[in-house]
């Protein structure tokens, strides 16, 4: 019972927040307002035509089948069909255009948001925000923006027309309004909530199934097929129960609506018949109202349905609003010099509320090779992220060529300091595109080939069909790990920055590729400031300066020999690395 309750509570809190995020999206989502207004106008027009259409039809129903009436009727019918279709088209155009504009806003935000922000860490959520959420939230927003006013307009017009015939006709109309308000507020919500539970159940089932299917090897090895069958059946039954509940609720809502449909017709008959008997109403007028009431009913139904949908769109809008509110990176205005020493002074940094680096100070000498070593989780990659200006220290500062890096403009700073993340690879496209990514000068094929030869990957590339124009699959899937890494290094050679930060350039490679990449790195960046996070013994030994990091602190900084002598943690690390390399076989 308790998880259920907390679920409901969460949803309530969500819906309060959702309205705010709804408004936020209206303000900042760059909606296609002109199209929306145009769509609104067409929809209002459609409403008026619908009213006229009802009037013409009531002439017929009341028994006037003269030719002019018939032609008026046909003409109105055609107009009605055209307007309905047109308002549909306008809604589609406004919606798709708004989605496109919202996407550009979101994309801008993603390009510039702070990488340490919460939103930046959830890549899959960003993808779904820009793909699915943008479409869904705009669908709800535009539909309600255009649809609800149009429906209200129609109902008001109908009420005015009914009142002109007899004020008593207002009674059935006003009886219907609370029915649908009730629907929008409760019945629809109820429906929505069950829908939500079903989605949760489907999520549960999906989670269960995909976990078990991933672990099928294990299940088979331990002969657990039978018990998993039972468990799978249980999970599927939970979903079944929820689904049946949803069907019941759907039925109840349908019956509720149909019932009031009939009630309204009965009312129209009752009021009408008594008034016709007393002679206060003409048959045409009565027929008019008789036809009008179901239409009012329909309009109210669709408006309340839209409102329910808007309430249901909570999740989508709030996720997008959160993304839009994410702060952007800010840099200074200074132009960064081509090279210089990198210094960290008393830098502390926390991530996700967890402290990662405690008061670290280190210096990276210009033109030398520095290795940052330590066990996994000790904060090595975070140091690189700070040096590149992806993250900002909570306290302390980072200096480049004697100036705090926050004073440099971001683009000039990053043009000087290259950063190759672990397994970052390259984007899909041709090899040439991958190599020239981020390079804004003209580069000749000779220069590209020279760089490829330097890292000894040119032979491989030349063997691809198309050579430099061969296509790289998504995530670099068509290349081996070693080739990918060498290409990345060749790319950095072509960029020619003074400082290069490398995060575990050899980590995911097999032994022979590791050696090759190591030599490629050494060859490629001779004389440059090179900072490498690595476990590769050869690379560590080769470095001019080694920084030993452990649990967010710098334990020691110095040459291999110095650290071997003074730092026991370093000695231990070197021994472990040695074992691992030996066993892989050469």
């Amino acid at each position, binding site marked *: 019972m308790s998880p259920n309750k907390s679920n409901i509570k969460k949803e309530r809190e969500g819906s309060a927040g959702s309205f705010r995020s709804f408004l936020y999206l209206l303000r900042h989502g760059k909606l296609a307002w002109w199209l929306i207004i145009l769509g609104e106008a067409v929809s209002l027009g459609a409403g008026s035509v619908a009213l006229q259409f009802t009037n013409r039809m009531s002439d*017929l129903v009341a028994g006037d089948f003269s030719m002019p009436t018939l032609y008026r*009727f046909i003409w109105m019918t055609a107009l009605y069909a055209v307007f309905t279709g047109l308002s549909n088209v306008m809604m589609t155009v406004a919606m798709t255009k708004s989605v496109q504009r919202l996407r550009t806003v979101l994309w801008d935000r993603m390009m510039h948001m702070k990488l340490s922000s919460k939103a930046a860490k959830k890549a899959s959520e960003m993808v779904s925000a820009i793909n699915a959420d943008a479409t869904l939230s705009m669908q709800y927003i535009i539909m309600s923006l255009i649809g609800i006013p149009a429906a209200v307009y129609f109902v008001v017009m109908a009420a005015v027309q009914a009142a002109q015939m007899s004020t008593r006709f207002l009674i059935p109309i006003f009886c219907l309004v609370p029915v649908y308000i009730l629907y929008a507020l409760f019945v629809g919500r109820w429906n929505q909530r069950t829908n939500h539970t079903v989605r949760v159940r489907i999520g549960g089932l999906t989670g269960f199934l995909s976990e078990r299917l991933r672990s099928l090897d294990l299940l088979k090895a331990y002969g657990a097929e039978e018990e998993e069958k039972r468990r799978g059946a249980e999970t599927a039954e939970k979903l079944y129960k929820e689904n049946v509940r949803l069907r019941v609720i759907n039925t109840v809502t349908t019956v509720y609506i149909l019932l009031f449909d009939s009630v309204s017709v009965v009312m129209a008959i009752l009021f009408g018949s008594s008034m016709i008997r007393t002679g206060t109403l003409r048959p045409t007028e009565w027929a008019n109202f008789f036809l009008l009431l179901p239409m009012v009913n329909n309009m109210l139904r669709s408006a309340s349905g839209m409102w329910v949908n808007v309430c249901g769109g909570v999740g989508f809008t709030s996720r997008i609003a959160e993304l839009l509110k994410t702060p952007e990176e800010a840099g200074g205005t200074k132009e960064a010099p081509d090279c210089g020493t990198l210094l960290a002074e008393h830098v502390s940094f926390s991530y996700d509320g967890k402290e990662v680096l405690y008061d670290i100070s280190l210096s990276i000498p210009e033109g030398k090779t520095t290795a940052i070593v330590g066990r996994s989780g000790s904060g090595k990659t975070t140091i690189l992220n700070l040096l590149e200006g992806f993250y900002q220290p909570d306290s302390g500062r980072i200096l480049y060529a004697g100036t705090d890096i926050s004073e440099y403009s971001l683009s000039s700073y990053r043009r000087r300091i290259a950063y190759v993340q672990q397994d*970052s690879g390259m984007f899909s496209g041709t090899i040439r595109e991958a190599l020239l990514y981020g390079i804004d000068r003209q580069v000749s094929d000779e220069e590209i080939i020279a760089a490829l030869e330097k890292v000894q990957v040119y032979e491989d590339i030349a063997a691809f069909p198309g050579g430099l124009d061969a296509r790289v699959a998504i995530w670099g899937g068509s290349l081996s790990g070693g080739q990918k890494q060498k290409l990345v290094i060749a790319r950095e050679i072509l960029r020619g920055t003074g400082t290069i930060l490398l995060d575990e350039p050899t980590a995911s490679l097999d032994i022979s590729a590791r050696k090759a990449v190591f030599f490629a790195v050494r060859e490629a960046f001779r004389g440059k400031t090179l900072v490498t996070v690595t476990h590769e013994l050869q690379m560590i030994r080769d470095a001019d300066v080694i920084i030993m990091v452990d649990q967010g602190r710098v334990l020691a900084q110095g040459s291999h020999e110095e650290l071997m002598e003074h730092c026991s943690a370093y000695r231990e690390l070197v021994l472990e690395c040695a074992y691992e390399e030996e066993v892989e076989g050469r």
Partner: protein
Amino acid sequence: MKKKEAGLVAFLRNFRDIRLPWAILIISVALSIGNYFVTLRVAELTSDVVDKSGNIVSGDLMAYILSALAMVLCTGGTFLLSGVAAEKINLSLRKKLWNKMMHLRRTSYEADQGESLVSRITVDCDFASTLFTTAIEMLSGALGIGIYYYELFTKNAKISVLTLLLLPASVLIAFLYGRLRYRISEKNQQKLSEASGYLIERIYNLKLVRASNMQEEERKKGYEKFGEQYRLELQRGLLDSLDSFINAAFPVISMIIVFLVGGKLVNQGLMTAGAVYAFYLVANNASTAFSNLIHDFGGIKESFGALERVTGTLQEAEEQLLDGKEADECEGGIRLSEVSFGYSEKEILHGLEMEIPENEITALCGGNGAGKSTLFRLMLRFYEPKSGEIREGALRLSELSLRALRSGIAYIPQDHMVLGGTLRENLNLGGQHFTDEDFDRVFSELGLMDFVDGLPERYDTELLPDGANLSGGQKQMVGLARAVLRNPKILLLDEATCSLDKKTENAVSTALLRGMQNRTVVLIAHDLRMIRLADRAVLIRDGSVCYEGAPEGIEKLLGF
């Protein structure tokens, strides 16, 4: 078309052992047919009301109210019953499919990573039941159309014929339009997924974009992609609008015919206005029923795709767990002779020869992709070798029943070794019933009691799917304890201690191998210390064994 029918037959055959909820389906059809008659009655009454210009007696009103109520109940009932029937069918099919998946061969799921197999159960099964419910809806819809048209003909044959003429035209248009739409949407889908592929790649690698100073360029490129997406989505949206326009057009045209022709008849005094209105109501219902029929037809076509996927999975070959000999007759070590194997055309193992002596510890060494884990999978018969054979003692593995073979082996895979559920459930995987004392004994033997004591509810602690609330090392502890609990004849360790910290790893592997002294152990070693713990070492390179012998030999080979 012919191929599809074959698919349908195959699909229906899948339902042979599923009990369909016939009773519910029949009642729901009966209710929906009842609904047609009630609807006719309501139209009749409405026509009376119109003719009498609302000047009606209370008896009529009562009849109206009752019929309306009956209509509501019939609709609600049909809705509910067909819904429940659909869910029941879904559930049965889900269970059946899941049971099937438990017995799939590894070749059927290895490439999948659970992704698309999952959607077979969660998504495709829904479509399969729609096939049934829609077929039934179509049946009753066709009946309804018949009933309505019979009624229309008795009311007025001339108008009926005219509106009936619309039917073939609407069928033709719906058919042509459906094809057009399908073709366009297929083309768009490709482009749309390209565009979203671009976005996904960038979003997952924002740091590369930043580090390469490419924000501006990527921003512009993204805008282009959004423009492209916009055009395609607009196209799709407009097609949808056109669809609903076409759908709406038929009732409108039939309405115009009814009033135009009916009006003439009224003017000639052959029909009353109320009768025309009633005719309109019935014709409207008929055309709605008809457009539903066409819509259902489209839905059925859509479900064909899902149905083919479901059938495909259900027709995959199964592992037969019980076929073959029991294990007790086989004694001795494992011998692989001339084993060749590859997951695809490319061979990983070429005529591999290898001996795994009984009750000894054998360490497998070799670089990434040398085929060490593949050897384990062959020993567990997740795959059969392309050529050559594996023997346990005198018996070929292929002669043993899978159940017997696998129950004699405890296997610790590299990853995915913890499932959602309590620690107890995880340790008892495979229907075992170990006691807490057994658990305590094994964990303390392995020197891992601290891990258990550190858990809030010890063996009843709930572990998240994939062991998300455990560290990599802790997951391996669970895997190790599970294997040791079974006291297996053969233990296969696939880098089973690599995520433990060095100190624990040392202690655990020593304890583990001490406990396994009279057992056959094969371990994939990832450092020198593990190799030194073994009795023998085997080095695999380029798909065959290049060293087999004492561990010291390998060290020499490696250049110590």
